[in-house]
């Protein structure tokens, strides 16, 4: 297996409600930015993470659409779907294609156009990432499923709604320094607790928003990375791992743990030969505030049940021991579901290159991304190191 590096990354200028742009335009803007950032004159293959082109825009066969409008026909183009982990899975597919020697220059990307449907239609589309017959049938939503994780965590460990809110406050503070973020405004614990309830105990400001956006990265063999990269240091992919768990949240052996992330992270630490304390910056899947707390515990950044106090103590802020979601996370930057896993890679690559401006983590050399689908039925973890 060959070592693989990232030599270019790109996103849209701004994520959010992109009314003037179609799904394909959103994708092409981000992909061109990644191609320009890498400085490559061609790609050999491409993967597009997309959760639900069909339900959000009526368009399936997304890989071919994007290859066409990017002007890349006839390269092989495949859509990858693992719900909200589609982006991470697309990166992993590209990683395996380069590592195997099948292709040299691969574009990995993700896109979602979510604002062309109404709020309740979007809620329905997102709920299809749960067990459609045995969860969604009863009317439970994604916020509802994560709310039940929060209730279970609060019941078992005494986690508080103030600790949940502290995650949102921290991520918005970071997002306020990110010009691409959908909601780049600072908030307080009181703002969160006084916002409307979506599914008790989660308020609207505990939830990531509905977002249009795309992200992309260019992969190549690590041995050619320094010669190919035109704009910024190449970043090596030390680990690319994935794990699955039961599709229904109710079937998990421990309702307060995201076991797919525990498994994927353990495999990633082994593959990269790194321990959590050797990693400088983390982008994790904070689709809801409770998710970031449970992911901290799954990644070994906090003892079980201690993640809430750790956030309140500043452990995960920029300047803390384990900075999490310097981009603003899904919460503030936005969560176009298929693009999120790739955008996490974009943020970590820019951090490791020292390109993150006011939200730069000092001397960041190694970073980790964790992207999950559904209520954690899929998790994808990547560990990156600047070359």
């Amino acid at each position, binding site marked *: 297996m060959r070592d693989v590096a990232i030599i270019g990354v790109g996103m849209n200028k701004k994520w959010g409600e992109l009314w003037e742009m179609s799904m394909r335009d959103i994708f092409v803007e981000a992909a061109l930015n990644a191609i320009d950032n890498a400085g490559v004159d061609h790609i050999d293959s491409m993967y597009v993470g997309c959760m639900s082109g069909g339900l959000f825009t009526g368009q399936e066969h997304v890989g071919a659409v994007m290859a066409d409008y990017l002007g890349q026909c006839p390269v092989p183009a495949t859509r990858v779907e693992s719900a909200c982990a589609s982006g991470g899975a697309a990166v992993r597919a590209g990683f395996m294609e380069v590592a195997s020697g099948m292709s040299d220059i691969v574009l990995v990307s993700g896109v979602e156009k979510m604002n062309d449907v109404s709020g309740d239609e979007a809620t329905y589309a997102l709920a299809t990432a749960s067990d459609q017959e045995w*969860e969604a049938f009863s*009317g439970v*939503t994604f916020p509802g499923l994560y709310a*039940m*994780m929060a209730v279970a965590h609060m019941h078992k460990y005494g986690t508080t709604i103030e600790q949940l809110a502290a995650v949102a406050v921290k991520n918005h503070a970071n997002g306020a320094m990110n010009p691409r973020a959908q909601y780049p405004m600072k908030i307080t614990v009181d703002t969160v607790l006084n916002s409307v*309830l979506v*599914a008790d105990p989660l308020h609207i400001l505990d939830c990531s928003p509905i977002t249009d956006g795309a992200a992309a990265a260019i992969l190549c063999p690590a041995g050619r990375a320094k010669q190919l990269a035109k704009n910024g240091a190449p970043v090596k992919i030390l680990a690319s791992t994935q794990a699955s768990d039961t599709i229904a949240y109710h079937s998990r052996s421990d309702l307060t743990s995201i076991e797919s992330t525990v498994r994927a992270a353990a495999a990633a630490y082994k593959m990269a030969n790194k321990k959590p304390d050797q990693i400088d910056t983390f982008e994790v899947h904070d689709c809801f505030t409770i998710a970031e707390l449970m992911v901290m515990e799954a990644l070994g950044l906090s003892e079980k049940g201690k993640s809430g106090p750790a956030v309140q103590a500043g452990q995960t802020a920029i300047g803390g021991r384990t900075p999490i979601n310097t981009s603003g996370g899904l919460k503030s930057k936005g969560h176009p579901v298929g693009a999120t896993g790739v955008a996490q890679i974009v943020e970590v690559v820019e951090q490791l290159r020292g390109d993150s401006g006011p939200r730069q983590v000092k001397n960041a050399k190694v970073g980790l991304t964790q992207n999950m689908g559904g209520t954690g039925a899929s998790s994808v973890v990547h560990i990156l190191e600047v070359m």
Partner: protein
Amino acid sequence: MPTARAWREYPRRYRYEAAVCAKCGKWFFPPRLVCDACGHREFEPRAMKRTGTILTHTVIRVPPAPFKDQAPFAVAVVEMDDGPRITAQYVDWRAEQLKVGQKVRLEFRKIYTDGHAGTIQYGYKAVPA
């Protein structure tokens, strides 16, 4: 929901029919074709007892499209006394009964109406036991 897709699940939604692994005895609801505990492929059909315990819960205030007219409504993860866990709406409760550890019983109820001229979907909801 297409009629065949709903019809196929009637034994589960109406009669709580589960499958018990013929080798290791693990209960599955809904039934499946291979046991995730021991890999065995033969099962004995058995109806679950309709009683269980709430493990966690929420109140949905922003519903998905087919449940627009029902919000707010409570949903719970229930561990059935026979072992399988389910997600179901929790109804007819008083404030002090919305809690982890609450004993519940499943009842046959209307779940939602599928569009203006569509099929009425029936199934189970949990009520305090």
